[in-house]
C-alpha cells in the first residue's frame, strides 16, 4: 500500500563516500538509511515532544508532507494518535522503558484509509539532549495474510471433516448400490436356472441334440453368473460390515480355512508346509475369508502339478507388523501384472483351465487393507507364486 521511493545508490556515490572524513561519512550513512528506509521514521525531541525529522516513509504512510510534520507536537498529529495518545502518555512510558515496541496500531492517512502499523521507539541521549526515534512499519498486508491463514486453518478442519463425510456417504451409497444390484440379480437368475432345469427334466426328449446343448449352455452361463453375484455380494459385505477385532491364532484360522476347502483338495496330492504362525489381532471371519481365498487360489493354480507344494509362513518381520506369505509351486503369473492381480474381476489365467470369478484376491486385498495391512504378490510364469500380506500389531487387547 505504502511504498517509499527508494533512490538507487550508484557505485559512483559509494566510491565518493570513501573520501569523506569519518564523522561526515557516518552522518552520510545514517542519512541514506533514514531517507531510503521502507519504514516510516520520526525523530522527536523528548522534552518538547516536537518532531525534529521525518523521512519520506512517514510522509507516505500518513499522507502528510515533511513540512507539515516537522515542528509539530507529536500528540497533535491526528493520524499518529494511536501511538502517541492525546495526553502524551507515550512520553511517560518511554521514559520508564526506553525501548518501546507497539503493535496493533492503526494510522489513518489523509485519505481516511486505516493502515495497520507496528512501531519500535527508542529514547536516546546525544550531546546532553534526549531524542526519540520511532520506526513505524505498515503491516496491513502482513496482518491480512495472517488473518487469512488463521481463517484457513480454522475452516480447514471443518472442510476436511465435511469432505470425509461426503466421501464416506458416497462410499456407503456405492456399497448399498452394489448390494442391491447383486441382490436384485439373484431373482431373475433363479428363474432362468429354474426354468432351464424344468425344461431339461420334462421336455428334453422333445428337443433336438443342438437345442438340448443350447439349454445346457444357458444353464451353465446362469450358474457362472450366480457365482459372480455371490462373490460380488461377499465383496460388498466386506466393505460394509463392522470389524470386530480380537486376538486370533493364525494357525487355527489356517486350519479352519483348510477345512472349508476340503471339497477342493479331496482328489489332490498337496504337500503342505505350515510354519509357526503368530497370534494376530483381526476380525476373525474376515481374516478367515481372506485365508480361504488365498489358499483356494494356491490350490487352484497348482492343480496342473502332479505334486503341489503349498507353504505358509512368516517373513523376518518388523517390530510393528507381521508379514505372512503363502507360496505355491503352481503356474505362477507374469510379474508385469503383479498389481493387477488384486483388481475386481481381474483374471490373469485363462478361464477354461482355471475356474473362478476373479474376485477372490480383490477380497483379500480389501480385507487386509481394512486391517491396515498391505498385500503384494511375487511370481513368474510357470514358476509358482508367493502372496504376501502384512498385519499391523495392534495394541487392542
Amino acid at each position, binding site marked *: 500500500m505504502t511504498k517509499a521511493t527508494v533512490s538507487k545508490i550508484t557505485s559512483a556515490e559509494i566510491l565518493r563516500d570513501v573520501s569523506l572524513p569519518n564523522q561526515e561519512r557516518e552522518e552520510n550513512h545514517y542519512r541514506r538509511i533514514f531517507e531510503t528506509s521502507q519504514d516510516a521514521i520520526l525523530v522527536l525531541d523528548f522534552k518538547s515532544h516536537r518532531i525534529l525529522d521525518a523521512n519520506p516513509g512517514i510522509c507516505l504512510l500518513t499522507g502528510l508532507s515533511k513540512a507539515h510534520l516537522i515542528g509539530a507536537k507529536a500528540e497533535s498529529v491526528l493520524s499518529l494518535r494511536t501511538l502517541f495518545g492525546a495526553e502524551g502518555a507515550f512520553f511517560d512510558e518511554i521514559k520508564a522503558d526506553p525501548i518501546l515496541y507497539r503493535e496493533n496500531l492503526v494510522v489513518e492517512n489523509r485519505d481516511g484509509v486505516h493502515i495497520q502499523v507496528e512501531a519500535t521507539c527508542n529514547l536516546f541521549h546525544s550531546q546532553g539532549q534526549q531524542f526519540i526515534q520511532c520506526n513505524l512499519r505498515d503491516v496491513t498486508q502482513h496482518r491480512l495474510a495472517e488473518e487469512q491463514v488463521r481463517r484457513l486453518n480454522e475452516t480447514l478442519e471443518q472442510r476436511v471433516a465435511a469432505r470425509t463425510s461426503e466421501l464416506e456417504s458416497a462410499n456407503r451409497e456405492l456399497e448399498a448400490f452394489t*448390494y442391491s444390484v447383486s*441382490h436384485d440379480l*439373484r*431373482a431373475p437368475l*433363479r428363474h432362468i436356472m429354474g*426354468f432351464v432345469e*424344468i425344461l431339461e427334466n420334462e421336455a428334453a426328449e422333445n428337443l433336438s441334440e443342438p437345442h438340448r446343448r443350447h439349454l445346457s449352455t444357458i444353464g451353465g452361463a446362469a450358474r457362472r453368473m450366480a457365482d459372480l*453375484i*455371490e462373490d460380488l455380494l461377499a465383496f460388498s459385505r466386506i466393505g460394509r460390515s463392522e470389524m470386530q477385532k480380537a486376538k486370533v491364532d493364525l494357525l487355527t484360522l489356517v486350519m479352519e480355512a483348510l477345512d472349508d476347502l476340503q471339497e477342493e483338495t479331496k482328489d489332490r496330492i498337496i504337500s503342505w508346509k505350515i510354519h509357526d504362525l503368530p497370534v494376530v489381532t483381526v476380525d476373525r471371519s474376515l481374516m478367515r475369508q481372506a485365508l480361504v481365498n488365498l489358499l483356494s487360489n494356491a490350490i487352484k493354480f497348482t492343480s496342473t502339478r502332479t505334486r503341489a507344494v503349498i507353504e505358509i509362513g512368516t517373513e523376518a518381520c518388523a517390530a510393528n507388523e507381521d508379514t505372512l506369505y503363502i507360496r505355491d509351486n503352481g503356474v505362477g503369473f507374469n510379474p508385469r501384472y503383479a498389481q493387477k492381480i488384486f483388481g475386481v474381476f481381474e483374471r490373469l489365467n485363462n478361464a477354461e483351465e482355471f475356474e473362478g470369478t476373479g474376485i477372490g484376491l480383490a477380497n483379500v486385498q480389501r480385507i487386509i487393507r481394512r486391517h491396515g495391512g498391505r498385500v503384494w504378490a511375487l511370481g513368474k510364469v510357470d514358476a509358482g507364486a508367493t502372496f504376501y500380506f502384512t498385519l499391523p500389531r495392534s495394541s487392542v487387547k
Partner: protein
Amino acid sequence: MRKEPARILLAEDDPADVELALSVMQSAGSAQCVEVVNDGESALDYLHRRRKWRGRGASQPALVLLDLKMPGIGGIEVLRSIKSDVRTRCIPVVVFTSSGERRDIALCYENGANAYVVKPVAFPSFAETLQSISQFWAGVNVPPMRSVRVTR
C-alpha cells in the same frame, strides 16, 4: 373337486417364483394345499378372512411362507402384524427371501419369525429347500390348535 383347506399360505409377488414354487409342490404332490397371495395386504386379508376370503373356512394355514420384498405392505410389516395380533400370532411364519443380509435376518427374528430361509439360486437346492420346509411345517410339525386358547 372340493378344495382342501390350504396348509401353506405362500405370500410371493414374483410370478416366476410362484410358478417355480408351485412346480416343486406339484412334483411333490402337495400343490393343492398351497394358497398363493401376491402382496402383503392380501396375506393379511386371507388370515383375517376379509374381502375375497370372507367366506373361507375357519382353519388357519399350518404355515405362512413369506417373501420379504413385496409391493405395498412388505414382508416385515406382514410378519409384525401377524405376530402382534392375538388372533394370528401362533401361526408359524417362515421367511423365504433372496436376502441373506444380517440386518434382515435379525429384524425377522426380532419380529417373531419362526424360521428364516434364503431362497437358493440353483434350482435343485431351491426345490429341495422348499420341499423340506413344507414337509416339516405342513407335515412333521404339530400346528397350533384353533380350539384351544391359552389365557395369559
